[in-house]
């Protein structure tokens, strides 16, 4: 904004305040634009996040109704707790198996249901259907599937002469059993992303490859998978976060048992907070979980940037 005033009559302080007013005006305008998001993000996301970091530094359990500052004491207590490490191990195992398996399966299924086959709509719907079930409801179904001796799992294995497994009661079987349910629940959801990704790929590239002699596994490995890498990064981020946040089925199926063999991070957090009533420790677990998820997302999104150049 240029004002035509004699130089002498314009004190520098006046000019400064004019500049300030212009900048402040623009700032207010910008603030106004993000206000609707801020109204929800500040009280419901940012403030609780700050609050939880603060409370993780306080001793606050049922014996100390008046919280007292203990620095990193809650973290030290968790890191010194065998159960915490078992939960971490379970969570990493759970994510380490369910994420790649469900993604790989989703990709293969997407390639299949992307073909022009008869009844392809029925297959797509059937594969997507576990996604739309509420997890709690799905878990109740799987309670029957895993019923020792009677459930679908044992009936099926009975065909091969082996039955009567205590799927959810045997520490060696319970985590794999939960993984199978998780993969069943998730795969259809990821398949839809891959299906969308596949349909966005240029058809001619695949035709050129067919003329060059590629097909089947080779086509998948040399073209489909690399061209879908953008989708893969996105899906794997979601899958990782989901697997870290698995809790609903634990309520119904195992309560983290037997002897914490199926306990996962979010359920442990819940137990620390609302079973042991140790809010300081629960906050510390929350902070650890947030840090883990943030790190995972950052790494993944960096890869997403690198993968983006495939889409020419």
């Amino acid at each position: 904004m240029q004002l035509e005033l004699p130089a002498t009559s314009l004190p520098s302080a006046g000019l400064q305040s004019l500049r300030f007013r212009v900048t402040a005006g623009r700032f207010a305008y910008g603030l106004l634009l993000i206000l609707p998001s801020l109204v929800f993000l500040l009280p419901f996301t940012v403030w609780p996040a700050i609050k939880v970091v603060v409370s993780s530094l306080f001793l606050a359990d049922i014996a100390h109704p008046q919280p007292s500052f203990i620095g990193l004491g809650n973290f030290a207590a968790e890191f010194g707790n065998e159960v915490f490490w078992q939960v971490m191990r379970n969570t990493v195992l759970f994510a380490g198996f369910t994420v790649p398996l469900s993604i790989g399966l989703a990709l293969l299924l997407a390639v299949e249901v992307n073909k022009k086959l008869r009844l392809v709509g029925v297959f797509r719907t059937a594969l997507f259907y576990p996604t739309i079930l509420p997890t709690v409801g799905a878990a109740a179904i799987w309670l029957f599937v895993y019923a020792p001796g009677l459930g679908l799992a044992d009936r099926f294995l009975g065909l091969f002469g082996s039955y009567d497994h205590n799927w959810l009661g045997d520490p060696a079987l319970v985590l794999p059993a939960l993984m199978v349910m998780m993969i069943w629940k998730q795969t259809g959801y990821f398949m839809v992303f891959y299906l969308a990704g596949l349909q966005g790929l240029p058809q001619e590239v695949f035709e050129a490859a067919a003329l060059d002699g590629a097909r089947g596994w080779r086509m998948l490995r040399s073209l489909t998978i690399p061209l879908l890498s953008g989708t893969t990064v996105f899906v794997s981020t979601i899958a990782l976060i989901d697997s870290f946040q698995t809790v609903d089925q634990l309520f119904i199926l195992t309560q983290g048992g037997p002897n914490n063999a199926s306990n996962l991070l979010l359920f442990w957090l819940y137990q620390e907070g609302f079973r042991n009533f140790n809010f300081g420790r629960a906050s510390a677990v929350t902070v650890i979980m947030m840090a883990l998820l943030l790190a995972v997302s950052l790494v993944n999104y960096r890869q997403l940037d690198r993968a983006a150049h495939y889409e020419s």
Partner: protein
Amino acid sequence: MARVVLDRVTKKFGEVAAVNDVSLTVFDREFLVLVGPSGCGKSTILRLVAGLEDVSSGEIRVGDGLVNDVAPKDRDIAMVFQNYALYPHMSVFDNLAFSLKLRRVPKQQIRQRVQQTAATLGLEGLLERKPKQLSGGQRQRVALGRAIVREPQVFLMDEPLSNLDAQLRVQTRAELIKLHRRLEATVIYVTHDQVEAMTMGSRIAVMRDGVLQQMDTPTGLYDRPANMFVAGFIGSPSMNFLSGRLERHNGSLQVTAGDLVLDLPPERAAGADSANTQEVVVGVRPEDVQPAASLVPNGHRPINASVDVVEHMGNEKFVYLSLANASLVARIDVSCPASAGENLPVVVDAGKIHLFHPATEEAIF
């Protein structure tokens, strides 16, 4: 190298016949151009030969073998796509090497053949780049290289130049012709651009609505178009069409179209008689309409026309003329004076007119 034969080939998508009962033979080492407007079935023919689509009926032979049920990769055919279809995540080297790797060619030999192909096309410095880092012209050459490196029996090209700018297109056109001569390959080339067709093809097949209209050399098509569609499609500006009548006058056959009255040369009269029609469509190429001043052959009556628009092309000009109840385009020498609004008496060379049946649109020879 090999010849390609289509024998009564039909391809239906649902009820629509994209290719309708087409029979044609592409000779060994021939450069055949398939030309026609969008949706005429020319690309579908290419895809049928490549094996990307299955025929509904008819036979396709490459070399001596029937390939109807042969997988695309086993037909020994390479295709260049309109938008190049390069593998976006692979370097230029890997794009070229992909088919050889799949055929388990030894590594040393792959390197050699890729480098040789790259040298042919001037891609040596670009082998490490990804397609995204290349210009349109460079991508086009990589697409070409990917086809050449395999040394296939037949090359299929689907409008490979249409994504290039005008200047590059003309340049690449000439390079493709040279390349064809060097490779001694059989090429089937699809385009909607009649200039490309005329300049590149040893023969041209003109398609319309899935039906083959005519197949001939460029001059054959230009001089003896089989029907009004071919006559109008080949040549720029398009042939002029005037509706006229055949009349016998003092023993000789005359064709009248408005002011235009022409004596048919005796060798045309027999054909015109056998067509058994009085109504005809008279086709006149723009270069066969000339200012009366520059050429007054005996027996030709100049007709009056007024100039609507003049398009200066540099070496010639196109003059859009209004007659009493028709319009004509003339292609005349730059030295002839003509400007909009003026009168310009013109003559039409009776020996060079084309006659068509108004109902069937077939040529009357």
